[in-house]
């Protein structure tokens, strides 16, 4: 590989846009070239500084609910704006999140889905519902000793709630949700601006899987008699990292 080529490949490499073979070739080249190595280090530190410290502006709850429910009082900007979303449109959109979830489940059921399809659909729906309604967390705490008893007290089982803050996954809290007509524990972790739902219930035999839909990634496995589903808009690689940490912390 020529230096010129290597330098032009550094950015796509850092951005995860190179195929595995080219990445390997570039990594080998970089080991022997100080200039390329320095460039790579700069690109990486810039990228991680941006991810760590750039502000992520979350949509205000009033905007979200304004779009959903058409509550103009809450949704209207303070003053001076002439662009209001028509109230009739907002009403038609806001007829009911629950009804939407029910309708889509009913649609899937008509097509004769497998049990796993249904479960996954419920999980995507649960995550979407929670995100839309800003109700990701019922018990907000970064302390595993607060979240775990709160969940256990409301369920017939005690889900594992490991502290993974040392590994880049901050505990944000927990909630109870319903999947396949059954109550499940949802442990919520945060990585950068991404929220990750970890749904846990006593295991049935299921095969591990990972998939994505509409920009959300899903990772599923069973461990020690518990089924885990991880769902987030976090990228699939890092979601996989969390899955491995959970497996490791749950023991053999």
């Amino acid at each position: 590989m020529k230096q010129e080529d290597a330098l032009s490949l550094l950015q796509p490499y850092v951005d995860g846009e190179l195929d595995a073979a080219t990445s390997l070739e570039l990594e080998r080249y970089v080991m022997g070239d100080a200039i390329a190595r320095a460039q790579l280090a700069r690109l990486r530190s810039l990228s991680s500084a941006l991810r760590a410290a750039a502000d992520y502006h979350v949509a205000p709850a009033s905007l979200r609910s304004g779009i959903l429910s058409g509550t103009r009082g809450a949704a209207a900007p303070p003053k001076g704006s002439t662009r209001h979303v028509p109230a009739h449109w907002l009403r038609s959109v806001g007829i009911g999140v629950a009804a939407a979830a029910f309708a889509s489940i009913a649609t899937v059921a008509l097509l004769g889905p497998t049990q796993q399809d249904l479960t996954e659909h419920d999980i995507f729906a649960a995550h979407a519902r929670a995100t839309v309604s800003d109700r990701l967390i019922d018990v907000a705490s970064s302390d595993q000793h607060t979240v775990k008893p709160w969940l256990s007290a409301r369920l017939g089982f005690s889900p594992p709630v490991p502290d993974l803050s040392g590994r880049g996954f901050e505990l944000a809290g927990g909630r109870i949700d319903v999947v396949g007509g059954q109550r499940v524990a949802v442990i919520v972790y945060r990585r950068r601006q991404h929220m990750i739902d970890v749904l846990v219930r006593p295991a049935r035999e299921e095969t591990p899987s990972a998939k994505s839909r509409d920009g959300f990634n899903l990772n599923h496995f069973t461990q020690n008699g518990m089924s885990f589903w991880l769902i987030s808009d976090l990228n699939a690689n890092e979601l996989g990292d969390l899955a491995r940490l959970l497996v490791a912390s749950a023991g053999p």
Partner: protein
Amino acid sequence: MSENDRRFQDAVLPHLDAAYNLARWLTGNDHDARDVVQDACLRAYRSIGQLRGASARPWLLAIVRNACFSWLRANRPTEVAGSLDDTERAGSTAREDTSPGPETLALENLDRKVLNDAIAALPAPYREVLILRELEELSYHDIANVTGAPVGTVMSRLSRGRRLLAQSFQVVLSHVESGGRR
């Protein structure tokens, strides 16, 4: 509830944070970001039928992005006019600058505010690709779809945007250093 209402809620609303974040970074303030996102969501709702199979996130972000640029052209014409000429003339700038510089920038020591101000000071076309890449983690392909620019242009804007940022930090850092020595 109509099929369109359901699709809008399922596909679009989960990406509202991403939409707002992009609009907030492009307009530079909460009030206008909110207006632009509301406007864009109405457009997304009306054209939800076009979403067939496509991934909702880049689709929504493209609508928001176009709404932002319309807003910029109307309200901050200097931000969009001219700023691009330099870039596109510089063309593929991937190897134009291999200036030595420090082995790694001392970015850990950089103040959060300095970093955010530096991003906000970038011309909009560089700012948007950096936000889409680093904060929304979109692929080059998706960024190209959102911005309506070819992948090659996305790459050169990313490269130039990063270089501009790095330069502004070095300026800040050398100020700090020389200040310290005095």
